[in-house]
């Protein structure tokens, strides 16, 4: 934007040059490019070394299943990070909610729906408690949630009591995490035709939505993205949806948890970009004092961000519990780091005020793809995986800070 400072001749928005636009949005495109590059790298690597193909239906299914709970929490964590805070307790909350759910469902044999509701309420209560300390008592979130991390891990042990693990989980809950949608219309000769049909419908819907938005922007003269970028981006996303739909439909079909994830992503993308609450969240993180002087109830926004995180952590806890198949005291250990890393890799600013839901999701997928590739394609041990993930995180954030200082 340096060429557009105040006294520069007034340029019409539509005439913004492609290069400038790319420079401004380097980070957003960079993440997508990185994700594609990582997948390509592992695909080529496994092809060259004669291992089973990397881009396969089962790998894709696993990528979604393995990262579902990280992505669900990354959405909540993103909002916390945008307000300028952090939540270190989510890994322990995942373990604790799993234990609570297991006790209710398995030991007391209560209805699954009721147990799920209780778990979500417990998550909200946890978030509210931590949020109260952070927002109203002004205790640094790092400290509050570090304490929470220890407290809820301890409570997980206590809840499970003598039984070191509780299983088996009820089948209806298991369907949430490992199940796929049934094939209702076996017409296309695929293993799961319904999935393919959904993919086609989604693609058409996406295209309609994208072009309608574009034409409105064109009419108003607010289309910033150059035409070529717009077409390129839309084509890639549409192709990706179709291809993934095809891959999934040749296997077990669309995972249920993917539907849950997609719903949450859509809802939160909308909330952050289009609602007054979302706008206030960014304002609090961007400049808390200015937001406060503009009448934003900054404490309440931070409080709500933590309540929201608690609920999402509870959902993630149930998904995790369902996926692992048993509640143990170790469930979710260290998960908070993956979640936080996903947000920062996805472009959230460590100073607050900046970040996007889609970015955090892509960040989580980058981490997930790295994990999977190093594990299955390269068969590297856990120590290398940690090393590489750490370096990717550092590189992503360094890049942000560098960009920021340059501007």
């Amino acid at each position, binding site marked *: 934007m340096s060429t557009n400072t105040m006294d520069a001749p007034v340029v019409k928005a539509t005439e913004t040059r492609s290069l400038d636009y790319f420079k401004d949005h380097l980070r957003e495109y960079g993440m997508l490019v990185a994700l594609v590059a990582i997948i390509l790298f592992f695909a080529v690597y496994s092809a060259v070394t004669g291992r089973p193909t990397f881009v396969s239906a089962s790998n894709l299914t696993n990528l979604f299943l393995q990262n579902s709970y990280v992505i669900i929490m990354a959405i909540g964590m993103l909002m916390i990070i945008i307000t300028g805070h952090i939540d270190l307790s989510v890994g322990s909350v995942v373990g604790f909610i799993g234990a609570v759910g297991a006790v209710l469902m398995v030991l007391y044999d209560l209805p699954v729906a009721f147990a799920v509701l209780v778990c979500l309420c417990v998550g909200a209560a946890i978030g509210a408690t931590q949020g109260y300390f952070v927002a109203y008592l002004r205790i640094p979130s790092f400290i509050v949630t570090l304490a929470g991390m220890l407290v809820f891990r301890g409570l997980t042990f206590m809840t499970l009591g003598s039984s070191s693990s509780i299983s088996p989980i009820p089948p209806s809950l298991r369907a949430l995490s490992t199940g796929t949608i049934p094939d209702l219309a076996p017409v296309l000769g695929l293993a799961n035709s319904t999935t393919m049909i959904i993919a086609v419908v989604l693609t058409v819907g996406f295209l309609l939505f994208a072009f309608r938005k574009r034409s409105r922007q064109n009419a108003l003269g607010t289309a910033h993205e150059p035409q070529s970028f717009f077409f390129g981006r839309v084509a890639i996303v549409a192709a990706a949806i179709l291809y993934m739909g095809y891959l999934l439909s040749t296997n077990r079909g669309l995972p249920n948890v993917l539907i849950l994830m997609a719903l949450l992503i859509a809802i939160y993308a909308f909330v952050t970009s289009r*609602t007054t609450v979302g706008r206030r969240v960014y304002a609090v993180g961007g400049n808390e004092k200015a937001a406060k002087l*503009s009448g934003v109830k900054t404490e309440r926004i931070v409080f709500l961000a933590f309540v929201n995180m608690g609920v999402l952590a509870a959902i993630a806890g149930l998904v995790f519990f369902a996926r692992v198949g048993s509640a143990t005291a170790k469930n979710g250990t260290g998960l908070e780091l993956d979640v936080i890393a996903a947000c920062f890799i996805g472009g959230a600013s460590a100073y607050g005020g900046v970040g996007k839901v889609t970015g955090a999701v892509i960040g989580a997928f980058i981490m997930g793809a790295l994990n999977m590739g190093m594990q299955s394609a390269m068969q590297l041990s856990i120590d290398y995986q940690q090393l590489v993930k750490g370096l990717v995180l550092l590189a992503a954030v360094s890049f942000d800070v560098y960009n920021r200082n340059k501007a």
Partner: protein
Amino acid sequence: MRPALHAGRPLKAVHDPSRLRERALAPILEMRGITKTFPGVRALDNVNLTVQQGEIHAICGENGAGKSTLMKVLSGVYPHGSYEGDIVYDGKVQAFRGIRDSEHAGIIIIHQELALVPLLSIAENIFLGNEISRFGVIDWPEAFRRSEKLLAQVGLSEPPTTLIKDMGVGKQQLVEIAKALSKKVRLLILDEPTASLNERDSQALLDLLLAFKAEGMTSIMISHKLNEISRVADSITVLRDGSTVSTLDAKNGVSEDRIIRDMVGRQLDDRYPPRQPNIGEVLFEVKGWNAYHHLNTQRHIVKDVSFNVRKGEIVGIAGLMGAGRTELAMSIFGRSYGRNVSGKAFMHGKPVDVSTITKAIDTGLAYVTEDRKQYGLLLEDDIRQNVSLANLPEIAKSGVIDAERERSVAEDYRNNLRIRSSDIFHKTLNLSGGNQQKVVLSKWLFSDPELLILDEPTRGIDVGAKFEIYSIIERLASEGKGILMISSEMPELLGMCDRIYVMNEGRFVAEMARGEATQESIMRAIIRTAGRSAA
């Protein structure tokens, strides 16, 4: 302009030969023809300052007259080479590269904002950065022994292990002086030393300065308080707009009128939009307003202030830095400043509750801050998002933002206030000061207030943009809004306001109508009341 200089001769002789004093000693300090420029600003223009050995020399001047800059040049904060002119100290031309050099020469500055670490002890503070140590190991017994001696010199009996945070401001000031003494001070510079002290502590401090003088020490004191100056100063240098205006002998008392005239006597040559006031009934009124410092509840910052603003009226608040004007405005605007805020507020004659920012906004108040970047803008966000921030419900339906409406609102303000940018999606970080200010104004205009409080509305804005801001203010007033304008630039207040309140040391000390307010009358009101209100 440049007065002829005679080597070794005190400058005052040139200005005012009748007051020439015979001196056996050469001056300890002569600053000759100091000029210091910042990009776009000439902060000091050929300033001359001569300080005699063993005297107390006062420096007077308005905000922005160049007092602090001059002291920063002297102490090496602006190193040799970054300014023009010579510093002759101790008979030699000095080339200080930093504070270390000037301190080594015995020149010590005590700033208005004390530079003590609250959680460290007296002894630790006195020897901070200058510890008595062998191979990096501090000799505490020796440090305590010397601290006690230094404390005795400034009249303190506290043990040197006392933490700074547990002492009053007056005693902290004395610790600063003890710290200066530990550095073998020969020329002590105090920047408004009594600004945050009560009457008793101020007197004690001045007595101490006189005692030091009796022992032969030289001091420079920056102050606005004429009664204090006349009590201790031997001579006075008045600065205005970065130049030396006069050097006066104060041994036999000072003429208040002379100092005031010298401080403010500039040409009123700025341009203001024509004004035909159409003033209505009283819009907003405040009675008996009080506020205390947000950290130190002992400090009474706003003292029993009452005022009113009428519809369509532009009311100014004049005063020096630290008079409590911003604190007054912010404490009224939803108690965003201060503790134990009390007083009554009325809108259209009815009592209103302005105890939270949301309530203040709903009442029809808007506060445009003096510090745009810290308190006014979301710098990482664009013009559009900044404009809508204070009134989001207006552009939203059940919590969902109507992007189209938001865009058109921002577009309207961009056109109306002539914000220069490529479009409304321009990050506010990259706008010039004037355009940033217009964005902040847009934000508050969109909240549709009845009373706009403008705190230093043209600070850091170039001349052309200033006129635009003035025109906007004038337009708002003629539309019937009430304007309360805080400014440290007197010509601006005189050019814009229908009525001016003068604030000093937390109180409103004068009220002047458009015709009767002059730079001299405002400054006189400030000077007359300075340091006279017992805390």
